[in-house]
């Protein structure tokens, strides 16, 4: 169980870091940065749902929590990019 937990977090770390790297690499290409940000946030929300489903504690509240935090991240991103 612990090993699976660590693996889940490695996957999450890879999703966020990969998204961050592409976002940084796409400096000056706003459309690509927006797309990267949205895809990374979607990856985070999906990760959350899958992780909690595997853990056996997936609940509608949990899904809404990930969606709301993802929305906040996207709004922060739009604020920075001046969208």
């Amino acid at each position, binding site marked *: 169980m612990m090993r699976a937990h660590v693996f889940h977090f490695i996957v999450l770390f890879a999703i966020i870091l990969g998204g*961050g790297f592409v976002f940084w690499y796409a400096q000056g290409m706003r459309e690509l940065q927006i797309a990267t940000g949205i895809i990374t946030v979607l990856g985070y929300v999906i990760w959350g749902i899958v992780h909690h489903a595997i853990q056996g504690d997936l609940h509608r509240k*949990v899904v809404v929590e990930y969606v*709301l*935090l993802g929305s906040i991240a996207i709004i922060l991103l739009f*604020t*920075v990019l001046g969208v």
Partner: protein
Amino acid sequence: MGDFLRHLFTPHHTNNHRARALHLDALLFYALALVFFNLFLGWFQKARPDVLGYATDIHLEQLLIATNAKRQEAGLSILGLNASLSQAAAKKAEDMFAKDYWAHTSPSGATPWEFVTAAGYQYAVAGENLAKNFSTSQAVIDAWIASPSHRDNLLKSNYKDIGFAIVNGVLNGEETTLVVQMFGSQSGQTLAAGGPVAVKPVEAAGLPNVVSTPEAPARKESSPTRESLPQAQEPSVVISDSALTAVSSNEKQAPYNVLTQKFMESINRPVVDITSLKKGALGAMIVFFCALFILDAWIVTRRRITRVAGHSLAHTMFFGILFFILIRSLGGSIL
């Protein structure tokens, strides 16, 4: 008061073991508050740009002095401001805004040295550095110096001339101050009279090209040359000699009369700098989230609380990385 803060910020039986500030309605409130903050910033910036706007203080003279100071520190000769290179830089900046690109080569394939030759500068060697979204001249130079490839370009011993353009505009939908720095030396060119003598050995011709800050291929003396632009096409604003630290020998004969004020500086001093405001607000919000999630994870783990909620460690990781990406994005970029 203590009970209220505990209820607000820590997992407790009064808040169903999840800080009230992390409940779903609170998260929805933050999201909506951010949307309104964004809309307000956009509206207020348009209504009162003198109060809220992008602060910039970039001058051609400061860029020239800072560039030459870095070269002198490295024991290299100072560069003379060249009217043709400045004109090439201005044309390049205009082209970048017109075609909406952030690259050394335009979407239509025009390279930096095409602008150089079109401005009447017959280079033996040439190079280009680009910067955008910086607020001060020193910040631009510091960013170039911090990047090995740009630093190599800036500290290349076989350059003798330099040109700049500082232009405001909208690039990729973003309000931007663009700085174009062009370097070059012409065939058979000598050091400017009175300039410091390079103490570093002069590098041989045929230096490896810098990938991110392209250097033009060496041009043979016998290469066909383009005609210089007619004098009549040159704008008439004069840059005073006193503002310049170096003048190349051929430029000493003619005054600097190529750049319009439009390309020489970007000065905007609103009461509130929108970049600093965004950095502060977003930074504070993300730090607030991370602090709450870390506190939540620590207390829940310590008390072995079982509950239905998202993973605080995952949220901390997510917002922690987001923090660095967003704060970095609010700074300037170089190319």
